[in-house]
């Protein structure tokens, strides 16, 4: 097995384990968030193995560097020391959730591999910022511009939601 493959399976496993840690850690929200960061970074390595260099960098910059930090920021702002809730929850929903999620995943893993294409050869600059940028600013320039509107709306929405009303 070559180095990329080793990296793939190693960090894939790391991603799964840390994702499980995130979901299963019911005590500590910050620990969950840190597990999520680990998942993100592991996924970034997987992206590098899959020749998606720009995506990998952005994965760390945006997801790990900004989004999860905002999660942590909110957790700290609300000072949620202990993630302990008193009331018992609806067990049926919980059970249904697990069944559907795992059943769906199982079904998917059963079905999908039959119809997957074979992996093609790629040019040397595949996934580089130049190649992605060329596609982004030529073929996808309209979605790119429109996405700025979405972000603007999100900014305004977040400010309006989180702002303390001054009466």
């Amino acid at each position, binding site marked *: 097995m070559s180095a990329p493959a080793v990296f793939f399976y190693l960090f894939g496993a790391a991603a799964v384990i840390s994702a499980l840690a995130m979901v299963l850690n019911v005590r500590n929200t910050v620990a969950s968030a840190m597990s999520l960061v680990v998942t993100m970074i592991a996924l970034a390595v997987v992206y590098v193995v899959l020749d998606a260099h720009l995506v990998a960098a952005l994965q760390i910059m945006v997801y790990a560097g900004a989004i999860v930090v905002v999660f942590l920021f909110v957790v700290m702002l609300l000072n949620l020391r202990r993630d302990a809730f008193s009331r018992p929850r*609806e067990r049926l*929903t919980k059970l*249904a*959730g697990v069944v*559907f*999620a795992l059943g*769906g995943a199982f*079904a*998917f893993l059963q*079905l999908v591999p039959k119809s997957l294409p074979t992996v093609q050869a790629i040019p040397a600059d595949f996934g580089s910022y130049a190649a992605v940028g060329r596609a982004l600013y030529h073929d996808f320039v309209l979605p790119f511009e429109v996405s700025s509107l979405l972000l603007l709306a999100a900014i305004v929405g977040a400010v309006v939601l989180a702002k303390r009303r001054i009466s």
Partner: protein
Amino acid sequence: MVETGVSTDLLRWIPALPLLGALVHGVGLGLMRRDMPRPLVIAVSCGAPIAAFVVTCMAFAQMVAIPGEHRVLIDEVFTWIGSGRVSAEMGFAFDPLTAVMCLIVTGVGSLIHIYSIGYMDDDHRDDGGFQRFFAYLNLFLCAMLLLVLGDNLLVLFLGWEGVGLCSYLLIGFWYGDRWNAYCGMKAFVVNRIGDFGFLLGIFLLLWSLGDAATLNFAELKAALPRIVDQTVAVPGWLPGPEQWRLTTLIGLCFFLGACGKSAQIPLYTWLPDAMAGPTPVSALIHAATMVTAGIYMVCRMSFLYVEAPGASAVIAWTGAATALFAATMAIAQTDIKKVLAYSTISQLGYMFIAAGCGAYGAAIFHVGTHAFFKALLFLGSGAVIMAMHHEQDTDKMGGLRRWLPVTHAVFLVGVLAISGFPPFSGFFSKDSILLSAYTAHSVPGHQWIWAIGVITAALTAFYMWRLHFRTFFGECRADHEAQHHIHEASWVVLGPLVVLAVFAFGSGFLGLPQIYGNWLGVPDSNALANFLHGVLPHPQHEVAESTELGLALLAVGAASLGTLGAAWMYVWSPGVPVRVRAALGPVFRLVEHKFYVDEIYDALIVRPLVFVSDRVLFRVIDAGIIDGIGANGSASAVRGLGAHVLKYGQSGLTQGYLITMIVGALAIVVWMLR
């Protein structure tokens, strides 16, 4: 294009200029919410038709300069509707027929616009009435010009509907009186019946032409031989053979449209009521231009009617019946404008006689002369009405020549013209119609049509002179106070009257029959017929000069008879009418009440329709089924469903919603992978 003409950009300006005027007024009123200053309104609204007239003259000159038989100017502005095989251009064509119509419309239209300045001067309502009036008038002119200029059926239909709309708007112009608004509505609805026939005709034509389907007149003309021999089966209750010629059916459909627009039996009832509009409107729309649209259309489609003898016969007989029928009704009217309205219907009947007998040139000739003398009569009556302070009943007039010498003089010219005394214009045009009826062997019973025409001529002379005598002669029957205020109108009003009087007298010489031309030493004296020669089919048969002269003398004799009768009854022995009325009794009441046609229509058609619409269509279908079961029912069903069933889906458990969403997504995935 089958028949190409000379391309020009001039034609589009003819309808565009009045449209511009209407837009300026409409936008000014709509956006600025206040009247423009009157001088500006006048400048714009009268400038537009005059400019259109000038452009028309330029186009006329340009067309006349083209050598050869097929003289036509073409202006394709843009493709209006492009739909597969059929496409409709916003295109205009200017051939001799259009030229005549265009000159009449813009010329008479300009005069009536000027006249309206004086007539509408006292309109000081706060709804921008003065400006609104001119906006409508300009819009009407635009539509009418579209109608006569359009080089295909769709543009013609656009103008057709446009003039109908403007007619509706102008009849109900003084909408403060509900009766006026009702009259406008009546005109519109009755016209819709005719339009239905017109549309059926268009669709039939399109359908039957198949691959060669087109709307362009020139192309239609070329494509017509494809369907000439086709026949269609018709329901058994219709007269004639079981198989009709397709052209006859199409021609009848078109003629139904012409009936509505040109007020022929059975759709004439709207025109007398249309007199509710301002008098210039009556002159322009309901005498000179719009009502002749039906004649124009039949002439425009003459290539079709030549191949549809059945339809032509129906046209001729309808025209004859209408001419006589309307003339009898006009006899007993006292309202000055009603008399003129019935006279208009009667004269339109004459035109259809000519068209039905294949003398399309004569029909157009009469359209022209009628436009002049009828506009003159209407405007003259308008001057009288102004002088009498909007009193229209001739029972309250009389002896007006004392106060209104100019009006009296021009009115006299009009009466002479319509009565058909030589050498006034009406004589020549009516004479050529009667001649055509006399010689039209293709129409069954054409001699009878000729006889009806002569009788109608006598009746026409009678009721016109009756009107004239009752208005201008004898003792004034208005009260003393009113007499005191009678005065001649201003020159803005009289000027157009004088101009029209000149044309009402002289326009007949444009179509001077050759026999009179020979007397005067003029070769090719019938200028109009020669001019229209290339466009309209013309009757082939020749008659002896003596016959022609004899017929003319008979017609003049009939007119003289009517005149003498009127003079006897209303000037020399004023007691006669009362005795006649007493003697005739019920017959007179029948005539006075216009044969109760409106009442019959009301009872036979309107009331059942209203009943069905109200009780069945409105209360049962609309309110009961559509509103009750459809709209309210579905709404309450949804509400009930939400209130009693679906609300339990609103569990308040966010993750429950999430599960639902995932189940749905999974279902879609499974369905796609199936």
